[in-house]
């Protein structure tokens, strides 16, 4: 990880704001309210666009804002209650999720392609988040692990949809606005650099 310059600082803060805005009512029409939330889409984008470490930092900034009591989580929630309630594990899982997504999307410094991006969203945006979320939820609600996992199936359709949207958006961004990633990728197999491909396209 390079040290953050002013633009990195701005991007980290702005992505924290982006996740917050995805939780505002009416920001984008999405299914239901809390705890089914479009904010996980923001987490997925942060990991994929900022990379694992800056992405995780950005999620952490958001959670810190929530912790001090700003209503930046879906449904206008905030405060330390977030970290005592049944969704606490998911919220912490967002940090891990961003790391996993960033690592997979940019694995080996290669440019993001559809299959790897989709895999990242499933492993990080769903797998990693649930891996922390379900045990904590089980602990807090005293519903045994297996049953808790069953109840969290209600999130799966929404999360799959968000993973699909994130994959589409990220791979489109690679073609349409590659400078948004602020990194250069290693030459793809054809031996040409991606940026050249983008310019030619």
């Amino acid at each position, binding site marked *: 990880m390079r040290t953050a310059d002013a633009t990195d600082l*701005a991007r980290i803060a702005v992505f924290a704001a982006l996740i917050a805005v995805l939780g505002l009512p009416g920001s984008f029409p999405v299914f239901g309210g809390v705890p089914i939330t479009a904010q996980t889409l923001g987490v997925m984008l942060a990991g994929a666009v900022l990379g694992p470490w800056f992405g995780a930092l950005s999620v952490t900034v958001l959670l810190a804002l929530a912790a001090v009591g700003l209503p930046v989580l879906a449904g206008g929630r905030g405060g330390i209650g977030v970290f005592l309630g049944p969704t606490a594990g998911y919220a912490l899982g967002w940090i891990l999720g961003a790391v996993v997504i960033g690592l997979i999307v940019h694995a080996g410094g290669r440019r993001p392609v559809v299959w790897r991006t989709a895999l990242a969203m499933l492993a990080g945006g769903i797998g990693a988040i649930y891996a922390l979320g379900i045990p904590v939820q089980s602990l807090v609600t005293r519903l045994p692990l297996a049953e808790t996992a069953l109840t969290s199936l209600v999130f799966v359709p929404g999360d799959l949809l968000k993973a699909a949207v994130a994959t589409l958006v990220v791979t489109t961004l690679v073609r349409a606005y590659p400078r948004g990633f602020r990194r250069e990728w290693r030459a793809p197999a054809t031996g040409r650099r991606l940026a050249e491909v983008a310019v030619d396209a």
Partner: protein
Amino acid sequence: MLSLYRPGGGWMYRMPAGPKLACLALVALVLAALPSTWATVPVAVGASIVLYAGSSMGVLAGVRHYGCHAWALRWVIVVTAVGQLLFLGAEAAAANTARVAAALLVAALVPLTTPVAAMLDALERGLQPLRRVGADPERIALLWTIALTTIPVLSKLAADVRDAQRARGLRPSLARGALPFLVVTLRHADDLGDALDARGIR
């Protein structure tokens, strides 16, 4: 600025942010640790209501805020209750839902009675020890100030994206809106980065 703070006066308002946070978190944890029996229901609900009513914002106002917060938590409560009812039966469902909800409600008293600025100060003080491991608390504080000031800007940009789509005869959707929103967000971040850098903040 967006905030959960509701101005008022009384002992809970006067308590310094750090100790208040610690006390209420402790109460919330105790409530969360109650056993899964019928008796927990009145204890958890009663204790949390009493805290709201007695937080000296006025009994009526306290109960009103209690209702508002409970409503904001409705989905958390519903999801918890349904899962429990399906697998554990009525007693465990009632008790577990009550103690989880009560803990959340008690914790919600912190932002309700503490101005955000006071919490940010407390947090910054809490970060001071990080200086020893080489982190810069001021820089971290700056990071969340920027995030905070950016939220209304991005929500305006999100509205622009929605308007642009409706104006083209499209129904705004997450799938269609996400890319343009991401692009305008990234461009905003670039400008912000330039402005910060030029002001000597690196």
